[in-house]
């Protein structure tokens, strides 16, 4: 019984953490695109990275929340009502909105050749801060007993 439970917890944790790594990787690609768009020399680079980022972000963020909630339901020491889990879900919604907007903007630039959004760099920084706060919340688990 213990072995099966442990196995389930470990597998869910692996899937949750891998999804979180995918989210951060997509954020890295978003940032790389924004930096590349700052110079004409690298503008072609930005267009080539955008499609991969546009796939990794939704897949990573969706799987992270699915496996995160599953993990909270699976283990009796966690509850979806815990403050740090509610905080993580709120941060996930904020991050999802920023990342979704960035991805849509880059897709538009790639498909129609529209001008890059001048606020993209600021949105990228906001996304990185959101992900960093989310990681701090996951590690420190404030309020958990």
């Amino acid at each position, binding site marked *: 019984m213990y072995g099966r439970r442990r196995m389930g917890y470990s*597998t869910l944790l692996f899937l949750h953490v891998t999804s979180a790594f995918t989210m*951060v990787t997509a954020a890295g690609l978003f940032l790389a695109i924004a930096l590349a768009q700052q110079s004409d020399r690298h503008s072609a*680079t930005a267009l080539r*990275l955008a499609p991969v980022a546009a796939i990794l972000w939704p897949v990573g963020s969706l799987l992270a929340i699915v496996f995160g909630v599953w993990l909270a339901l699976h283990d009796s020491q966690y509850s979806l009502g815990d403050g740090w889990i509610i905080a993580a879900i709120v941060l996930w919604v904020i991050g999802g909105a920023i990342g979704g907007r960035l991805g849509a903007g880059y897709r538009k630039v790639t498909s129609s050749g529209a001008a890059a959004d001048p606020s993209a760099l600021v949105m990228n920084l906001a996304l990185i801060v959101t992900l960093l706060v989310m*990681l*701090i919340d996951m*590690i420190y*688990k404030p309020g*958990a007993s």
Partner: protein
Amino acid sequence: MTVLLIRPDSWNLPLLLHVGGAMALVASVTVAAVALLQGWRASDPAAASLKRFGARTLLYAGIPSYFVMRIAAQWVLSKEGLDNSNAAWIGDGFLAADAGFVLLVIAAIVANLAVRRDPESGLGKLAKVGAGLSVVLIALYVFAVWAMTTKPS
């Protein structure tokens, strides 16, 4: 019997730096891999731009992230009193980190050498080796995440 889910507060900072460094490392290597692989498929001058971007990402983002991850890993082990542990998952972590570092340095060197030798053309053999090594590194990092989270005995 329950699994210990809440760790002592003093372990949190090194763990945050370890996981944050690992995330930055994976993101950097993946950005480089995507840029180099897209450069492989592209024609000049886009390929030259992608080659340069991928090579610089490995050098200026990948290698510093590695040091944050690796130094923090040693700090976590020290905090947990596992410096001399023979646990399989720790061995797997060392394997992925240390073998991965050799591959990361080789990938960064060959990709940047390719940029230096021929800055205005496509990938060439050296940068293609860098692209291939970046993909191998991503697979190695997935293995490391599996070992760190499931802790196989």
